[in-house]
């Protein structure tokens, strides 16, 4: 069975104080339905990726909440998997299509974060962490800083290499109308920004954001003309690891990413060398470096230099990483992020990425991580 991405739409990411979760959902779902060229009633199920509506907004039961808002009387579920809620929602939607029970489903990734105080959001996000680490006062910048320190010690990774991730992703974001930070920055800007958790500085960290993204997947699709380039889900894989960083085998890679990637490559019959572009989970700059290596694009310890040389920037030899601006500059509304990654890969593979189009892109990958690597979702999309 082939599963096609019929459409993908995303709101602007950022401080959307004028918009409610309801209006964000309406905006993206109506666009996705229109782009897909289907009637709303043709969608048979709704999968909502969201992490914080309960803990911050006091609204649980949001599968039904959004089905009601969108006027969809269909089975609706909320899928929570921390920052990978969006990727997991796509995975569950794919599984539902594979059962044959549904033929066309809607996935909504959504998060509203900036209406709350930063300390409330930081505390809520730590709901994705382990009890012990939370109680010890660790937050995600702290956890990723520990990984950065280990990576620096083992491979000689430098702060400049990490900064190059942010510089590249800000450059890409300038080409993306929907990105939160459409502003170019320099390595020096990153190095001089405020320390958050040594060695991570403010500009090494992704922001908190509001945003929503919707896609429609279908196993029942028609190619309208020879010019149409359908985009298929070639693989959808999930893997887990320990919740606590302290329990990991090592701090220099995410085992969940490696496992999910291995499964996804196997499912698609492809390898890392086949990937033209990827949206990876750069919640912190070190996370992109580790993802490059764990996804097999570079040998361990070599990704930092490649990023610094511009190999993964649009126009570089590839694979092109985070053409949307990633989480770092595109924004990171946690439940929406994993779905937005699919939208970006879909737009690239269907030739709709405008100024940031990666020429000749045929195969793309999306990599979404929960917490400090407790869970990872990898999707591979293809237009072949």
């Amino acid at each position, binding site marked *: 069975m082939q599963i096609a991405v019929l459409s993908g739409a995303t709101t602007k990411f950022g*401080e959307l104080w004028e918009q409610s979760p309801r209006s964000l959902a309406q905006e993206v779902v109506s666009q996705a339905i229109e782009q897909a060229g289907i009637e709303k009633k043709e969608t048979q199920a709704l999968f909502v990726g969201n992490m914080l509506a309960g803990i911050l907004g006091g609204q649980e039961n949001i599968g039904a909440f959004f089905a009601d808002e969108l006027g969809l009387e269909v089975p609706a579920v909320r899928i929570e998997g921390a920052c990978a809620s969006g990727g997991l929602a796509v995975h569950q939607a794919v599984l539902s299509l594979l059962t044959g029970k549904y033929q066309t489903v809607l996935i909504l990734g959504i998060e509203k974060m900036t209406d709350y105080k930063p300390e409330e959001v930081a505390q809520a996000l730590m709901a994705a962490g382990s009890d012990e680490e939370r109680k010890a006062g660790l937050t995600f910048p702290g956890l990723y800083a520990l990984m950065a320190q280990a990576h620096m010690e083992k491979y000689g990774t430098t702060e400049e290499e990490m900064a190059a991730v942010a510089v590249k992703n800000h450059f890409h974001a300038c080409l993306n109308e929907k990105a939160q930070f459409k502003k170019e920055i320099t390595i020096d800007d990153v190095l001089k920004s405020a*320390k958050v958790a040594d060695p991570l500085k403010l500009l090494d960290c992704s922001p908190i954001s509001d945003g929503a993204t919707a896609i429609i997947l279908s196993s029942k699709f028609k190619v309208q003309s020879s010019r149409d380039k359908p985009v298929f889900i070639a693989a959808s894989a999930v893997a887990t690891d320990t919740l606590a960083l302290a329990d990991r085998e090592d701090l220099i890679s995410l085992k969940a990413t490696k496992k999910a990637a291995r499964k996804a490559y196997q499912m698609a019959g492809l390898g890392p060398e086949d990937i033209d572009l990827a949206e990876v989970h750069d919640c912190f700059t070190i996370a992109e470096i580790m993802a490059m290596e764990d996804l097999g694009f570079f040998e361990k310890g070599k990704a930092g230099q490649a990023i610094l040389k511009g190999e993964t920037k649009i126009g570089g030899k590839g694979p092109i990483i985070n053409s949307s601006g990633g989480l770092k500059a595109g924004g990171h509304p946690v439940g929406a992020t994993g779905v937005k990654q699919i939208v970006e890969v879909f737009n690239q593979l269907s030739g709709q990425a405008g100024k940031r189009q990666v020429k000749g892109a045929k195969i793309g990958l999306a990599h979404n991580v929960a917490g400090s690597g407790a869970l990872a979702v990898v999707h591979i999309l293809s237009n072949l």
Partner: protein
Amino acid sequence: MVGIIGYGAYIPKYRIKLEEIAKVWGKNPQEVISSLGVAEKSVAGIDEDAVTMAVEAGQTALRMGGVSPSKIGSILVGSETHPYAVNPSSTIIGETLACGNNYLACDLEFACKAATTGIWLTTGLIESQKIDYGLVIGSDCAQAKPHDVLEYTAGSAATAFILGNKKNEVMAEILDFATFSSDTPDFWRRDGIRYPAHAGRFTGKPGYFAHVIGAAKKLFQKSGTEPSDFDYCVFHMPNGKFPKRVAKILGFSFSQLESSLIVEKIGNPYSASSLLGLCQVLDQAQPEAKIFFVSYGSGAGADGFIFQTTKNLMKKRRLAKKVAEFIKNKSYLSYAQYLKIRRKI
């Protein structure tokens, strides 16, 4: 014509450098200073509060106005740090300034714009011939919770204005007015809670900028003016960046704004912030100067005024100590001394 016939400012002599506060909390001082555009803030002494500072400013305003205190028909005091929750500041101030008993006394609260609302109310009382002279005070001994970002800017100061309508007394005529209000909870303090809370970056675009720009545009439209018609512009100064940014958005040049900027050396003395900027402009302006002024109060609202100075300004202002002199007269505190005199320890 209703206008200002006397004004007075008061800034306590104590200062704390942002560097001193930043070091305590492990922050990079240069980053804090450059991100806020403030280098130091004024701190009231251990025996000072919004009322004592108001009296200091009020005395100066009365002296400059040349009006007998007994002729003051109203005293409106804007502050968010009135010493009492119940028991008016305005009567303590009226009694101390010997204003007799036949004045309308009222305390006002609207975050940082309470006093500018008082100017408009007093203008109405004078225009409707209910009173001849009114005293309006903006005074705050701004509170900030230790380690809150507000701690870097919450300052102390007072301003006082005597309003009247006699041509030979008015030094700055009020030519026009516009206001802009909405229910925008960007900064608040509930009853019984010691320190205010705020909604971080939300205080910017939907708070300060939406309301200041809203009032300013209405004022331009109502008065048929544009930025180039003015010699000076004055805006509320919660930090060093917002007034510069809003002036630029509205089309004013930095030279029109520069004279009013007291925030770098004083911080944000809430109700006295924009009015202290106005005092500093009045300290420097020539007759017939046009001043565009917009305050801002969280919650939220902004009051815009157009003032035009008269020839009376030159002679009268000699009677008061200039804002610049208050700014220069200072004594630095350590963080521990600051905690002590503000009774935080």
